[in-house]
Structures are given as C-alpha cells and as structure tokens.
C-alpha cells in the first residue's frame, strides 16, 4: 500500500513544506516538468507525493484519497463538518501563520469586544430592521465563535475576496477575515476586536482517518520517527 502525501501545489506554502520535510530527512520533489503536478518522496519506500490546491486538501483527506496532507488548520476546521471525526492533527509546522479575526470600522469607538458587538448588533437591528451584516468566507468558524460567545442579531454575508472593502461598499457592517500583519485592515480603516482571535491558523500536517492504512506499517514507523509524530491506530480512532 502506498502512502499518499498531499502538499500545496504552488507558492510559498509549497516551498516551506518542502523545506520542513527536508529538515527531517525527507526530500520532496516534483517529477518531470516544473508545471507537472506530480512528485516523489525520496527517503521513504512506498510513499507518493500528490500536489494539490491547499483548499482541496481537507476534502481529499476527509474522503481518504490521500493519507497525509499539509494545509492550513483554518481550512480543515472551516471545510470539514465535525473535522475531528475525519482527520487527525499530527503536528503544527511553524509557518503559514494567520489569524482569523473580527474587525469593525475604527470610528466604532464604542465597540472593543464581542460584548460590545452584540449590543451594537441589537441596536443596529432595531434601527435598520435587519440583522448586522458580517462579511466573511469562514462561515462555519465565525458562526461557531459567535454562538459560543452568545452574540445575536447578526447575519453572515459571503465574501470570497476583498472582504475589507465590503464595509465601504455598504454590503456589510463588520468583517471576519484572515490577517497576518493587519496592514490591509488598517489601510481600510478597520480595527480588530479585542480578545483572542477566532482561530490562530498555521500550516499543519494532518492524517486521514478513513484512508486505508493497512500494509504500510514500515513506512508509518519511519515517518513517525523522522517527523516526530505518532502515526498509529490510536490516532485514527474517533474521539
């Protein structure tokens, strides 16, 4: 049985993933032409490299079509319902850091916290006749966060890009988006709400619980040792 490792197919995330594995004695390499999305893992018998869009890796893991995958911890939580049932988080990789945060216009001097946002949402709904709009593409994570903190009278509106612009365009009153430096937010006259971020994301190595792990114990043993992770049947048991 070949163990399939899914890795982001382009950009800085791919390079950093290659470096991370190289530091642990596993050389990942593209095979063939530079534009071909096929690859090899040197240093482990019976392992194959699959290059995929980072956003597709959670789904491929959940379906068990790849055994291991590197993607943002935010994408797994956002994409997969009940994510812990389908994948195991093996280890954070220390790069690709980004925080999912809530931001409001800087002139909302009366709003610092979720407690304030909730009160502002109630007043907004009473005045405007509709629920305060929060633009995001992270619907599941944001909804769960607001639910856990008891925020009401809001609605999520979908925004797949240029989310910070939605407030100026009057299609949302607040945004929930990924930021690493906060520069785009500041440039758009937005401020981050106080308190811990909705999620602190980073590139993470995941294992698929539903993939077939039979007859690959040698490779699993070697991977566990090299990567400093535990790859065993306990990892794949459902919580």
């Amino acid at each position, binding site marked *: 049985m070949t163990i399939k490792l899914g890795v982001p197919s382009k950009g800085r995330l791919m390079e950093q993933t290659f470096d991370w594995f190289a530091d642990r004695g596993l050389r990942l390499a593209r095979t063939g032409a530079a534009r071909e999305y096929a690859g090899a893992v040197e240093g482990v018998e019976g392992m194959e490299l699959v290059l995929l869009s980072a956003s597709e890796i959670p789904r491929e893991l959940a379906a068990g079509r790849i055994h291991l995958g590197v993607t943002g911890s935010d994408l797994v939580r956002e994409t997969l*319902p*009940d994510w812990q*049932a389908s994948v195991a988080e093996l280890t954070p990789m220390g790069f690709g850091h980004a925080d999912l945060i809530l931001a409001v*216009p*800087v*002139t*909302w*001097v*009366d709003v*610092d*916290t979720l*407690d*304030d946002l*909730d*009160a*502002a949402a*109630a*007043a*907004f709904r009473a*005045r*405007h006749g509709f*629920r*305060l709009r929060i633009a995001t593409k992270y*619907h*599941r994570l944001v*909804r*769960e966060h*607001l*639910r856990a*903190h*008891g925020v*009401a*009278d*809001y*609605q*999520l509106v979908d925004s797949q890009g240029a989310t910070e612009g939605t*407030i*100026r365009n*009057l299609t949302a*009153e607040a945004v929930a988006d990924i930021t690493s430096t906060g520069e785009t937010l500041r440039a758009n*006259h937005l401020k981050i709400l*106080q308190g811990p971020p909705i999620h602190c994301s980073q590139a993470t190595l995941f294992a698929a619980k539903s993939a077939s792990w039979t007859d690959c114990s040698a490779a699993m043993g070697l991977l566990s040792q090299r990567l400093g992770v535990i790859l065993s049947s306990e990892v794949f048991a459902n919580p």
Partner: protein
Amino acid sequence: MSRAEDIAADLLARMLDAGAARVTPDILQPAETLLDLYGEDIRARAYVTHDPALGEMMLRPDFTVPVVQAHMAGGAEPARYAYAGPVFRKQSASRAREYLQVGYEVFARDMAAQADAEVFALFARLLQAYGLRPVTGDMGLITAAVAGLSTTDRRRAALLRHVWRPKRFRALLERMRGQGPLATERAALIERLRAAPAEALMADAGPHLGLRSEEEIAERIVALLEDADTAPIPEGQAQALEVLLQLAAPARDALAQMRAMGWEAITPALDRLEARLGALDDKGINTETLPFEASFGRTNMEYYDGFVFGFIARDDMPPVASGGRYDALTAVLGQGRAIPAVGGVIRPDLLAQLEGAQ
C-alpha cells in the same frame, strides 16, 4: 412502511380524535422568516436552498412557524391543529438528519392553564406505554424575575434578550453586578469614552465608513455613560435569580419553595403556575411528583415564553417529545395580531428505536 411511520400515523389519528384539524405545511419554507426569528445559528442547523423566483428557501426545520402562519392567515378561534411529516436538520454524523415529527398545537384565548394542561395531558397519554420521564418548566418565571430586578429598562431588556443563552445571560448578569471580566473591560472602555466628546473620539480614530452612522455610535456612547452611572444590580436579587434558575424539584414542592422566597415580582407568574398545576390535577396528572426544572427549555427552545415540557427516555438521546407556550411568537409572525398558543411535537423515530431496544 417503517415502524416510525406506523407510530406517526397512529399518533396523528389520536390527535385528530382529540379534536384537532389536520394541517399539511409545505416542506419548502422561506428562509428569511426563519433566519430573522432564530438568528444565524439556524443556518448551521437547517438545509438552505435557492429558488430562482422565491430566493432562499429552507427545508422546514420544524412545523411550528408554518402552522402559526397558517393560523394567523385566517384560522378560527379557538383552534387545535395536528400534523405529521418529516423535518430536516443538519446534525453531526451520529444523529438523524431527516426525521418525522407529529405535533399538536392549541390557539386559544383566556384559558392558558387549561390549554397548557390539555397539551401536556394529551402527550402524557399518547406516550404512556413508553415509560418516559417528564420534565416541566416555565420560561415566564424567569422573564418575570428579570423584569422585577431593580435596575434600568435597558439592562432588563439586555438580559431578556439572552434568556435562551444561559452562558451569555450569566456573563451579562455578572457585569451588571459590577463583577467579572466583562465589567473590567467595560470599565476600560468607559474610561476611554470619558476622555473626550464622542465627536472628537471618532474624528481622532480616522475616516468614518459603513452604514452604522456616527449618530448611532454617539447614541450608544450616551447609553454606555448612563449605564456606567447605574448602581449594580443588588446582590440579594442577583442571588435570588441564581437560586431560581437552579431550582429543580417536584412541581408542588417547587411552587412552595418559590412562594417562600417572598419575591413580589414573580407572584403573578407563580399564580399562573399554580393555576396550571390545578388544571393538570384536573386532567389526572400527579403534580406532587411531576418534575419541575426552572431552567428547562433555556438552551434550545428559543421561542417558548411560558410553560415548557419534555419527555425524556435517556440522557444520551434527544427528548422524545417537547413543547411549550409561545405567545410572543404569534405576535412576531402575526404582523400586529397575536393569540396565545401552546403545543408540542413527538419524534416517532425515537419511539421506534425504544421499542427496538426492548
């Protein structure tokens, strides 16, 4: 036909015998009504689809809303309705996503205690063979207690808005007692807001954008500064509210304990509870042993505002049946008109499961 469908047909027939008229709401419901009612959380729990002409639609997550709408659009009074059919909920993998509900709803004025007792006694009779544990509660007691707190209308309204979110309710109450992390955060905010006039604070912050206007922000600042000068909710009252929220005892005993608190604000609500217990006695329910939990119904029954009840088989299973009074919902959906209403639903799939386990 599955066993659950057989049970559903039988329950529906017995509800019709009890005097109900059958209603058959559409499976596809306009999403907007449900979203405005339940908030964004319902989107995570209901299947939303799109119709080219009608916009966002939902596979009905329950029957209550369409039944109320049908009644408000021209039902006789008093009215009794029964229905049976599938509802659809997004759930974790281990729970049913599509399951049957059989329900009974009573719309009637000036007979709240009798209507409450009628619904509960009917359910108790229909479910008699299954050996379930009944639970009752009363959201009206909690709202009466909050309405009776010695504080501002604004604070009472903020608490009432979160009655169905116990964790948030507790955090708010704590802040209004001047305690806890929210009180500390609020104190820091107030200090910043007192440093300069609202206009100056906003001008310093940067250019204003968005639909929430500077006027709205200034209004909230005024409200915040007023609130900062409000005395904390008295400790005695806050503690009495905590005691009330944690009360769990047989119904008659619970009533006596709450009477003994000597809390004037909840006396009318206690009178209503006593009237309901009397009506239940008349229907042959033993209120000396009937369990009462003051906080029952606070977590997932967002539109109930009076009597609430459930029938429970096992703690690892959702309630087999649940229901309650929802007078306020009829006002929200009735566009100015309202009628007192009480009802409940039974899940035949769970009953079939219980039979199978025997």
